[in-house]
């Protein structure tokens, strides 16, 4: 088997196992209040981290400030000013990032 196919297969198995583990091992059980409170905060913490990593890092995790940041700022401004739809915010981000790249 080639390296490419071995990677595809192994990563598929690993991803399926990772996604299954929480629901299979802990599924359907009521968790006590002291653990439910932090769980409610995982989503904002995770989303913020995904935004930061997706916007400000390049290869090898090097911090970068480029067209993606301009796109994100434009989307943020759009959301703050209009409370408009997600799709339009996403389109604004792509458009601004593309324009910044075109200009630079």
């Amino acid at each position, binding site marked *: 088997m080639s*390296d*490419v196919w071995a*990677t*595809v*297969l192994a*990563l*598929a198995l*690993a*991803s*399926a196992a*990772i*996604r*299954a*583990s*929480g*629901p*299979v*091992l802990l*599924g*359907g059980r009521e968790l006590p209040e002291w653990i*439910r*409170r*932090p*769980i*409610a*905060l*995982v*989503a*904002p*913490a*995770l*989303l*913020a*981290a*995904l*935004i930061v*990593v*997706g*916007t400000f*890092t390049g*290869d*090898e*995790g090097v*911090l970068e400030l480029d*067209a*993606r940041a301009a796109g994100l700022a434009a*989307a*943020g401004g759009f*959301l703050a000013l209009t409370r408009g*739809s*997600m*799709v339009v915010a*996403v389109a604004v*981000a*792509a458009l*601004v*990032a*593309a*324009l910044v*790249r075109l200009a630079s």
Partner: protein
Amino acid sequence: MRAGIRAGVPIAFASLLLAISFGVLAQPVMGSVAPIVMSAVVFAGSAQFAALAVLAAGGGVAAAVLAGALLNARYLPMGVALAPSVRGRPLRRALVGQAMVDASWAMASRRGGRFDVGFMVGATLPNYPAWVGGTAIGVLAGDVIGDPDRLGLDAIFPAFFLALLVVETRRGNEAVAAAAIGAIIALVLAPLTPPGVPVIAACAAVLIAMRPQREEPA
């Protein structure tokens, strides 16, 4: 689930564009069939991009799989958060876990750490054909599209996650604090740790964000 499917359409749209850029970038490295199969069986954007980057750089299978798995490791804490809301037999719970995608998972989170599982599965449904089909489009039309970053496609998911984060932070100050601390953790760790680690470590923000309130007298 129907409400979830409706809410999933914008995610599918964003995924389609990201998948096209994955297909464009993967085709020269992986050939024409493997990227499409990978999208169908791995179904995880950041993990696929990470594995592709390792393969493109000439790294081995082990390094590529490790990079991908590390980026998907965030589904461990996400799965733990989801677990209490997932009912049924182990096989059914394992299948529900496969429907975890960042955006649909985040949109299905409700007050008090609960999740609307039907909503999440619904929101992921349109995403699957978009992800696999978009990869195929990218593979086939790569020559026409050229460099996907030129079109600003890499700005799409940060913007999408920002829109989701705005919704989350309306739930109160603890959510705002968790987001701010999570962002700082990720920013500090990004240059220091392998890809994937910063996002998982950012989950620790939850504990820091909660502490002040716990110390207040009831």
